[in-house]
């Protein structure tokens, strides 16, 4: 096997040096009756060519986003990633290193985590950010638990337009840890009464902006009402490119901002691995989950970085930790940080503007198709349309015509008949005039 350097001669020599007759002597603690007598019922070793052939065949059955006019979003977006990003994250020293527990030989990782934390804090308008969570949904669930720890209350209030997968993730973790969740019903037109649902038991209010239907929200009145009731405001951002153009939650009174960073530097990957963003006010930092890189000096007085405030973490505090998270999204974090360093403020702002402009063009074209209503008065790069008939069928018919036109709302929330005719449509810098024209024409045909 090409990945195993030991030769049969090495093995014999080593067994002799250890002083055992054969390899099985080293497995003697495994109950003899339980040991496998033969190989597992699986294929035998394959050459590199054979593996490529097998997996290439499987991959070839899927329609890649880059090969068709593509408008699918809802928490994962098809953006361009510069070639240098993917090259740099595959540098051996980044790719094959571990959690930086030995900081003297992990300054590369710690340095970029410190930069990442600063970038995320700036982007969200918050004071501090951690070194990443698994993804946006798990970051949201952790934020709710953190709010419970801070407020000593147990009830989370979720806006109806929070991504349903995020809602379910929060409900699962909260339900299992005996915390209450109140989820408001969806409001596809964007207007929902969150203020009226905040009460004295509320630990936190969770609001997504842009929300799952694409509407933007001014969080200031919600923050005010939440704070007056002694609750925290958790803002969720699943399209982080929007922060290049839209007022960040940190400037609107949010106490914790969580989000999905996949849009910057990371591919679609069928839903993972992604990169969870987590930022908060400095005063709550000791209640934060996850890893934190901090600045310090070495024995010669040189600036260096280490993982710090570890007393919050499971490897030190065990059952008293703020979270059980250990491995996070290291390499996806690096991809995010490299791409954002390349963009810089000027590039990010422009990228956001292009996304917004492309969405405006698309909304206008689709809105002109007979039988289509635009549901949004505000949006960034994603909006919702109402179509005649069953949206899931429309999406299938579009796919048959080579257009991936968006997400039927019923795919995320199948139990609500009022959502059956809605399609959530995302536009990015990847869409061309031809893509948009193809979509509008195909939709016209399908709805005719």
């Amino acid at each position, binding site marked *: 096997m090409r*990945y195993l*350097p*030991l*030769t049969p001669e090495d093995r014999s*020599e080593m067994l002799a040096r*250890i002083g055992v007759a054969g*390899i099985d002597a080293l497995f003697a603690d*495994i*109950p003899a009756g339980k*040991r*496998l007598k033969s190989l*597992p019922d*699986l294929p035998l070793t394959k050459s590199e060519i054979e*593996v*490529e052939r097998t997996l290439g065949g*499987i*991959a*070839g059955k899927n329609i890649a986003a880059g090969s068709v006019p593509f408008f*699918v979003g809802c928490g994962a977006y*098809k953006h361009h990633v510069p070639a*240098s990003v993917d090259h740099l994250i595959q540098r051996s*020293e980044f*790719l094959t290193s571990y959690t930086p527990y*030995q900081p003297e*030989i*992990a*300054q*590369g990782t710690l340095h970029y985590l*410190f*930069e990442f934390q600063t970038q995320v804090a700036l982007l969200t308008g918050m004071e501090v950010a951690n070194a990443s969570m698994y*993804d946006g*949904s798990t970051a949201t669930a952790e934020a709710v638990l953190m709010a419970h720890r801070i407020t000593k209350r147990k009830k989370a209030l979720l806006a109806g337009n929070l991504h349903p997968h995020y809602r379910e*993730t929060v409900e*699962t973790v909260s339900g299992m840890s005996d915390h209450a969740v109140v989820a408001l019903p969806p409001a596809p037109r964007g207007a929902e009464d969150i203020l009226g649902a905040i009460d004295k038991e509320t630990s936190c209010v969770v609001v997504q902006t842009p929300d799952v239907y694409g509407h933007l929200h001014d969080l200031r009145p919600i923050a005010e009402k939440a704070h007056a009731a002694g609750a925290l405001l958790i803002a969720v951002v699943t399209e982080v490119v929007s922060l290049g*153009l839209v007022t960040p939650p940190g*400037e609107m009174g949010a106490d914790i901002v969580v989000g999905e960073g996949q849009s910057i530097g990371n591919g679609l*990957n*069928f839903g993972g691995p992604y990169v969870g963003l987590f930022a908060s006010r400095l005063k709550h930092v000791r209640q934060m989950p996850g890893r934190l890189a*901090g*600045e310090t000096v*070495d024995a*010669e007085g040189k600036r260096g970085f280490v993982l*710090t405030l570890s007393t919050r973490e*499971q490897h030190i*505090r065990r*059952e008293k930790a703020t*979270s059980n998270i250990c*491995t*996070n*999204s*290291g390499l996806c974090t690096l991809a995010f940080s490299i791409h*954002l360093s390349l*963009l*810089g403020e000027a590039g990010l702002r422009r990228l956001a503007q*292009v996304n917004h402009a492309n969405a405006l063009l698309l909304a206008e074209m689709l809105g002109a198709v007979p039988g289509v209503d635009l549901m949004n008065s505000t949006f960034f790069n994603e909006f919702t349309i109402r179509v005649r008939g069953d949206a899931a069928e429309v999406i*299938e018919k579009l*796919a048959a015509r080579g257009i*991936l036109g968006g997400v039927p709302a019923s*795919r*995320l929330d199948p139990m609500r008949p009022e959502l059956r005719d809605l399609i959530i449509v995302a536009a990015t810098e990847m869409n061309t005039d031809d893509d948009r024209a193809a979509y509008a024409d195909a939709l016209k045909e399908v709805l005719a």
Partner: protein
Amino acid sequence: MNRQGRPTEPVQALSVAPETFTGNRGLRIEEALIFETGRTDVTGVDVEEPKRASRLGNLERKEIGLPGLSEPEAVRHYVRLSRMNYGIDSGVFPLGSCTMKHNPRLNEKMARLPGFGDIHPLQPQSTVPGALELIAELSRWLCELTGMPAVALSPKAGAHGELCGMMAIKAALTARGEKRSVVLVPESAHGTNPATAALLGYRVEAVPAREDGTVDPEEVKKHLSPDVAAIMLTNPNTCGLFERDVVAIADAVHAAGAYFYADGANFNAIVGKVRPGDLGVDAMHINLHKTFSTPHGGGGPGAGPVTLSAALAPFAPLPYVVNDKDGLRLIEHASDTQRKPFGRMCAFHGQMGMFVRAMSYMLAHGADGMRQASEDAVLNANYVRAALSDLMSLPFGDRPCMHEVLFDDRWLEGSGVSTLDFAKAMIDEGYHPMTMYFPLVVHGAMLIEPTESEGKASLDLFIAALRDLAMAAKRGDTARFSGAPYYAPRRRLDETRAARQPVLRWTRPMPQKEAAE
């Protein structure tokens, strides 16, 4: 002498290396933060000029403060940073419990095929049959290797997998109308085990090990009661030993109506040798980034699929792939299934990018290669043990270990050298240190896991270096240790200062005039 053996003229060497003017040392180049070098008006990405229009509802942002770099500047920045890191590709990385094995680049190539890397989780299922096939195939391999009937693939890392498995256990108990409040965790467990149990509201009871470092089923029985929900047992355990009474422990736990959760962090020792399902395990997470070689990437991303017994399978979280009369389908909602999923671990369907890499690893090895890998991993660890046991102390006697070998610090007593010092001196010798101070059950623990990726020649050099260091420590050559590392990109870092005066982000330095006031 140069490499060809021709004599070379010796150069009059300076006795002390001069401090350089720049702070750089040859290939080791000091690097600033992007916030110190970048500018908010510079960008390394060309984006077309957009048409101005707005549906932002008066929520347009003012300034952000993000620095930009041109492409050459950015590439150089990250290349220089990378050179301050030690990776598996740099040398031996014997970090116990972490399984730092070789990361085949074929896996990276496969994960980047557009049919895997460039597909969206919410595309119509009809456009991604290959994705469902890959998930089904990975599930089949994992079920076969563990001898368990079901697997939940969505957990995103080991700790997330623990949470998933324990949630399945909690759901199963709830379905039986039971509310149990205690989880048993051996003292040698990873910190994630008690943290996971506590997160779900369980009270954690520690089970002490016996003299030989393993768990005694009689001790477990003392802790069992109708209030115990589960035991969380790592096997092989973190002392590098196989829990030989695992079957008796499983039987006792099941007899008490509780479940057996296995932490699969150390699965690499037993793949193809024994199946956890045959030992009575009800749930076990598998770290794809350990056992199946998906890269650790400086701390992630990982993947932590959980294999489940027949008793727990109906409670597996959404989503999952089923293969019925309609072919492969992804079940995303409780309303689409007769089973009783306990909920959802995360958005979308799990770490597809890691599934592909793990699948690529498994296909390459095959059943025979995977068993050989486990045997080599165990052989390598025992070779290290045999070569060092005369110098360094083994807490549980000189007996075979599994894929990692645990030393304590008794052999350093009176030398003035601590486990930490010893680890830092290894850095100077060109090695990543072993895991130190874990597990907590032995004093000054040093946990060495060479993995199957080391050849004999490499291990011989590693052993020689450790022997030299051990003898130096015993000789009282303390300066070599107390000041280490001398040759890393940084000397020893002040972690106390980092925690007492936390600086967690860059901020603009105050102008000197203000600072003086």
